C-alpha cells in the first residue's frame, strides 16, 4: 500500500508542475505591461521597478518560472489589488465558507443521489426509475446560479408565511454574534490574540457550533445552508444518481448476485451487502471528479446567497480585473483538485486491491 501511495504521489508531481506552468503562462498573457495591469492605479515607475525586481520579470522566462514555483512553495501568490492584501491570506480567510458549502452540497448529493440510483436500478423501468432519471436529466441541465435564484425566490418569497421559509442570504442571521470556540475554551480572548489555525477552524460554522455545543448557532447555520447546498448539490446529485443506477444495474445481473439469492439471503442483504458494495466503486471516482463541479458551483452561487467564500471573492476579483487574485484562486483550486483526485485514487486502491497490484 505504501508503495502504491508513493507511486501515485510521484506520478502527480509532473501534473503539479504543469498546473504551475499553465497559471504562469496565463500571467504572461495579460495584455500590456504586467506591472501596470497587476498594480493598477498604484503603479508608479518606482513601484513598478520594485515589482519587476521582486517577481524577477526582467529575468529570462525559465528563471522567472523557477522563481514563480519558489514563491508558490513559500505561499506567496502575490497581492490582490481589489483587497490590498496577500492572496494567500484572503484564501485562508474565505476557504472555510466554500469548503463548508462544498461539503454540505456533497453530503446532500451523496445521501440523496446514491439511494435514488439504487432504488431506480432495483425497480428498473418502474415509475420511480423513470421519475428519477427525468429529475437527473433536468438536474444536470439547469444552470446552478439560476437554480439558486429560483430556490431563493421559492423559499423566501413564495413560502414566506409557511414553516418552510428559509433565509435567502448570509451564513448566519444578521446581528447575532456567536462566540468562537477558542473563546469558550479560553484559548484566546479575541481574534487578535488567537492563532491563524484557531481562526481558520472557528470560521467553519458547523464545527464551531459543535465545539461550543451551541444549538442555536447550529440551527441557524443549517437554515442558512439548506438553499446554497441544494443549489450546488443538484448537479452532482443527478450525476451520482445516474452512475449509481447504471453501476447497480450491471452488478445486479451478475452470477454472484444470483448465487447470493439462491443461498436464500434476504433481498435487502443481497442488494445492499452484495450488489451495492461492488457497484459503488465507480461512484467513488465520480464523487472525486465532481469536486471541480462543486467549486464551479460555489463560485457561481456564493454571490447569489451572499456567502463570502472564495467564489464571491473570485467574482469581485473578476469585476475589478484583479489578475493576481483570479490566478491565485485558480491555482489553489487546481492543486486542491489534484490532491482530492489523488485521495480518490488512494481510496479506490484501498477498496479494490486489483488496482493496487497493477
Amino acid at each position, binding site marked *: 500500500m505504501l508503495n502504491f501511495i508513493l507511486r501515485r504521489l510521484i506520478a502527480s508531481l509532473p501534473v503539479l508542475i504543469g498546473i504551475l506552468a499553465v497559471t504562469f503562462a496565463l500571467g504572461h*498573457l495579460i495584455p500590456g505591461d504586467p506591472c501596470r495591469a497587476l498594480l493598477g492605479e498604484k503603479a508608479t515607475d518606482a513601484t513598478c521597478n520594485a515589482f519587476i525586481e521582486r517577481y524577477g520579470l526582467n529575468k529570462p522566462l525559465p528563471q522567472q518560472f523557477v522563481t514563480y514555483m519558489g514563491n508558490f512553495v513559500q505561499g506567496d501568490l502575490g497581492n490582490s489589488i481589489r483587497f490590498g492584501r496577500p492572496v494567500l491570506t484572503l484564501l485562508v480567510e474565505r476557504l472555510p465558507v466554500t469548503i463548508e458549502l462544498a461539503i454540505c452540497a456533497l453530503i446532500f448529493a451523496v445521501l440523496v443521489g446514491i439511494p435514488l440510483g439504487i432504488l431506480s436500478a432495483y425497480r428498473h423501468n418502474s415509475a420511480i426509475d423513470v421519475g428519477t432519471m427525468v429529475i437527473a436529466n433536468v438536474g444536470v441541465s439547469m*444552470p446552478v*446560479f439560476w437554480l439558486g435564484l429560483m430556490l431563493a425566490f421559492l423559499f423566501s418569497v413564495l413560502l414566506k408565511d409557511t414553516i418552510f421559509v428559509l433565509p435567502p442570504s448570509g451564513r448566519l442571521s444578521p446581528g447575532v454574534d456567536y462566540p468562537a470556540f477558542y473563546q469558550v475554551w479560553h484559548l484566546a480572548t479575541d481574534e487578535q490574540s488567537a492563532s491563524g489555525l484557531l481562526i481558520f477552524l472557528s470560521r467553519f460554522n458547523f464545527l464551531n457550533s459543535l465545539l461550543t455545543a451551541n444549538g442555536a448557532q447550529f440551527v441557524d447555520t443549517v437554515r442558512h445552508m439548506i438553499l446554497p447546498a441544494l443549489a450546488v448539490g443538484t448537479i452532482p446529485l443527478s450525476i451520482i444518481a445516474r452512475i449509481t443506477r447504471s453501476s447497480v444495474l450491471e452488478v445486479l445481473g451478475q452470477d454472484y448476485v444470483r448465487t447470493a439469492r439462491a443461498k436464500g439471503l434476504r433481498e435487502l442483504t443481497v442488494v445492499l451487502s452484495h450488489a451495492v458494495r461492488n457497484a459503488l466503486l465507480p461512484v467513488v471516482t465520480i464523487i472525486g471528479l465532481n469536486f*471541480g463541479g462543486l467549486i464551479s458551483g460555489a463560485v457561481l452561487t456564493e454571490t447569489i446567497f451572499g456567502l463570502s467564500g472564495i467564489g464571491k471573492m473570485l467574482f469581485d476579483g473578476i469585476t475589478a480585473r484583479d489578475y493576481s487574485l483570479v490566478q491565485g484562486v485558480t491555482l489553489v483550486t487546481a492543486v486542491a483538485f489534484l490532491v482530492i483526485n489523488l485521495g480518490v485514487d488512494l481510496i479506490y486502491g484501498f477498496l479494490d486491491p486489483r488496482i493496487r497490484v497493477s
Partner: protein
Amino acid sequence: MSAAPDVLQLARPPAKTASQNLLLETFKNLLRNRSAIAGLIIIGFLVFIAVFAPQVATHNPIQSMIGQPGEVGKLPGKAPCLIALGCFEAQHIMGLDLNARDLFTRVIYGTRTSLSVGLASISIAIFFGTLLGLVSGYAGGWVDNLLMRLLDVVLAFPSLLLAITIVTIRGPGLENALAAIAIVSIPVYARLIRASVLSVKEMEYVLAVRSVGAGTLRILFIHIFPNTWTPIIVQGTLGIGTAVLDAAALSFLGLGAQPPTPEWGQMLSEARNYLFTSPHLVLFPGIAIMITVLGFNLLGDGLRDALDPRLHRS
C-alpha cells in the same frame, strides 16, 4: 503474384460500406429511443426559432418600449401581459426587462447567441482535439507522451474555472468566452480520438494500405479518421449542452456576451438583483437555458445508446 490483389482488397477501407450501414443502423436505433426523439424535437424546435428569430419575435430585441404606441404605466420590469391573464394593454408574453425591452423577443434572439456559441466552441474543440488525437495516437512514443501529459494538465483544472481565468486575462467578450470554452474542451476530444486511433491503427487494413505505399497523411485522414469519429458524435452532442451552460455562466459573471446583446446568461446577470420584484426576468431565460441543455443531453444519451454495439448488435 496472387498476393497483390489480396493486398489491394484489404487496402480498400471497409469504412464506406460499414459507415453507411452504421449510419442507417444508428438512425434506426435513434428513432427507437424515446430520449433521443425528445432531444431531436427540442433541438429542431430551437434551431427553427434561431433561424426564424425575426419572424417569431414580436419586437426589436434592443429597442426600449418607452414612448412606443399602446404602452402605458411603468414599463421597466413590467410583468407579463396577456389577454388570457386579464391584461388588455400592449401584449408582452414574457413581460418587459429593466430597460423596458420585450423579454420574449430577447429570449428568442438569445437562442441564436447560445446555439451559435455552443456549436462554434465545440466545433473548434473537435477540430483541434481531433488533430491532436490523430497525431498523438498514430505517432506514439514521446510525441504521444508529451501531448497527453500537456492535455492532462488542462484536465487538472476545473474547466469552468480555467475558462474564467482565460477570459479574465484576455478581456471579456463573446469571442474570448467562446475561445476559452473551446480550449478547455479540447482534451476530451483529443483523448477520445487517440483511443480510437490506437485500436484502429493496428487493424489489418491499415497495414495493407501502408504496404501498398500510402503516405502517413493519407493513412491518417483518409483511412483511419473515418473509423474513429463515432465517439466524437456522442461527446460532441453532450459537449454542446455543457458549452451552452458554461457560456451562460461566463456571461452571468460579466465575462461573456456584453449588453445589449441578447444572451440568456447575461439577461440573468442583469436581472438577479431584481429577483424579488421582477421574478419573470429570471424565470424565462433560465428555462430557455435548461431546455436547450436538456435537448442536447437527451440527444447525446440517445446517440450513445444507438451507437453502442453491446446494446443492439449482440
